[in-house]
């Protein structure tokens, strides 16, 4: 019961022992917050944790469209890329700081999602999935072509100014640790709120049975479109943080299918449609990716993490479609019996 609550599977958080739930939630936050102060922690470890946190936010955003909404958005990299490129171009060309640029990116993603969703969401899921995949590949081509704006295939590198709060830049990864942590907490709160709110319930109703939801008075198309837009904007916002942290973006890293899979894996590994899923899944994914990259660089082959991602996808889908959270919950339910 408690475990199920903490995982965000059950909507009302008040039952059981609320104190334990709060401690359970604050512990990882506190651990990450004091991470730079610990003696054995160097910049490499912090950088890995920041990477994990950023992919957790991306996973949380995708979790809303796919986990709660049940929409097959396989090309969510479109919105990541729009966020990255808008923030980066506005800063490099016009000196507009990311504090404003990221909102512009959100706005552009909103319009993109509105047009894409309006055209494809009335149809069956497959067509929506095909359209998102094709769109992300189209964006790769476009961003390669318009070299003046995007830097072409080489990508875009942010102008570095040293430590600056105005430009959200830093020589050390530690400030990004806190920025990403705050974003993870906000996205977690949004997910929790969605899981309990009327809108979230409507999304889940549409996911489980469109016809029944429509019969119960849910505006199916509008619910899908809104869910898609919310998720797109969240992805784009996280994209702003992504580009500030990495200081560079290229077409494949922004719009490519490989990146789209990386932003889906946290939610898939952790557990679709749960609030804790993307957080656990993101941590596991980055751990796996770092270990394989270390291992494959020892052997001298590249791209080992892609192979691991592919195998992970297959294993999850075939063996544990509810992810790690699903495994924990079913284990705890067995113990209760």
């Amino acid at each position, binding site marked *: 019961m408690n475990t199920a609550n903490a995982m965000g599977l059950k909507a009302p958080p008040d039952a059981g022992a609320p104190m334990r739930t709060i401690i359970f939630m604050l512990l990882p936050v506190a651990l990450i917050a004091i991470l730079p102060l610990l003696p054995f922690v160097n910049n490499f470890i912090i950088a890995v944790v920041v990477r994990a946190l950023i992919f957790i936010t991306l996973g949380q955003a995708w979790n809303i469209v*796919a986990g709660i909404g*049940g929409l*097959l958005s*396989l090309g969510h990299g479109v919105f990541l890329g729009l966020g990255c490129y808008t923030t980066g171009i506005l800063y490099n060309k016009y000196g507009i700081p990311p504090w404003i640029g990221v909102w512009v990116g959100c706005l552009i993603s909103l319009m993109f999602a509105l047009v*894409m969703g*309006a*055209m*494809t969401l*009335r*149809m*069956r*899921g*497959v*067509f*929506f*999935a*095909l*359209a998102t*995949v*094709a*769109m992300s*590949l*189209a964006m790769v*081509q*476009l961003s*390669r*072509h*318009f070299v*003046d704006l995007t830097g072409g295939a080489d990508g875009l590198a942010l102008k570095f100014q040293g430590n600056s709060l105005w430009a959200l830049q830093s020589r050390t990864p530690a400030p990004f640790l806190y920025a990403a942590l705050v974003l993870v907490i906000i996205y977690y709160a949004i997910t929790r709120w969605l899981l309990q709110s009327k809108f979230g319930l409507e999304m889940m109703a549409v996911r489980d049975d469109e016809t029944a939801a429509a019969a119960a008075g849910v505006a199916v198309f509008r619910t899908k479109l809104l869910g898609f837009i919310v998720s797109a904007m969240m992805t784009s916002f996280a994209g702003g943080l992504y580009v500030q942290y990495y200081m560079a973006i290229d077409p494949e890293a922004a719009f490519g*299918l*490989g990146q789209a*899979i990386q932003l*889906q894996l946290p939610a*898939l590994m952790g557990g679709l449609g749960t609030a804790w899923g993307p957080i656990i899944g993101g941590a596991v994914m980055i751990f796996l990716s770092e270990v394989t990259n270390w291992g494959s660089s020892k052997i001298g*082959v*590249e*791209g*080992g993490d*892609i*192979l691991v*991602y*592919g*195998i*992970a*996808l*297959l294993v*999850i*889908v*075939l063996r544990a*479609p509810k992810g790690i959270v699903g495994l924990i919950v079913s284990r705890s339910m067995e113990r209760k019996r």
Partner: protein
Amino acid sequence: MAARGGERPPGRYSKGMTEAAFYLALQAILSGILVGGVYGILSVGLSLAFGVMRIVNFAHGELVMYGMYAGVVASRNFGIDPLLILPLAFLFTALVGMVQYQIVFRHFVGHATLNQLLAAIGCALVLQMIAHLIFGADARTAVSMFTGQYTVIGPFFLSQAQIVAFIIAVLATLGVEVLLRTTTWGKAVRAVADDIEAAEIVGVNSSTINILAFALAAGLAGLAGTVLVTYFPTSPSTGFQLMPIIIIATTIGGLGSIGGTFLGGICCGIVQQLTAMMWNSALQDVPLYILLMLFIAFRPTGFFGTRAE
């Protein structure tokens, strides 16, 4: 839009230039048809797997890429013309497809769910990385007896490799249509596609039919790849690069319709070549994406698909 301009001189065209532009357009349409026929055969397998089993195989492009590497190995390692090993390439990718079906897609017959699409992407990544480990990331080419040969017909200048590829594509598509329409096995496949339970009642073993139909779809991908590699280099990421065209051809023609998909491929080829001629060859696919969105919004069954609801 930014790339427009600077390519054609402003001002009025003289009569001779109009004529030249006309021939250029005709040339683009002709080569569009040739290229498009190959897009058609690339896509037919995806359409078949969807029509029979409701499986959208995102790893279809990877199977094409395996067919291309089969051609490369034949040409570079054994000095055999890729066109002579077409049956072998067909069998090889059909086998890969059967393994794929047995491990993964067997569990998802009947509806294209999120899990099925994700599993397909997982397959695509694994297949791509296996090719990467074996052949490395560099692009490879294969040489057939027609590679680099050109034929001049009247004012038109056509690649022989593309002409041969087109002819093979037409023959293979016709072969599949005949197979599905006239043979008992083909009738059983169409029965399973129409209504799996009714087919089971009249004595069709749907699991055997499904795996063979999937093998046929995969084999067609390999065959198409071996034909394609005679004029188009391959690398491990080629599969992903081909997927948009395959998806667009299939959607325009109609998911599940073999002939429709082939015509969809030809449409893609013509639009692509005309765009490359009139606008910019680096952006030749952009109108196709717009076309895809319009089709999904207004006619998701494509030209010939009937069963997409």
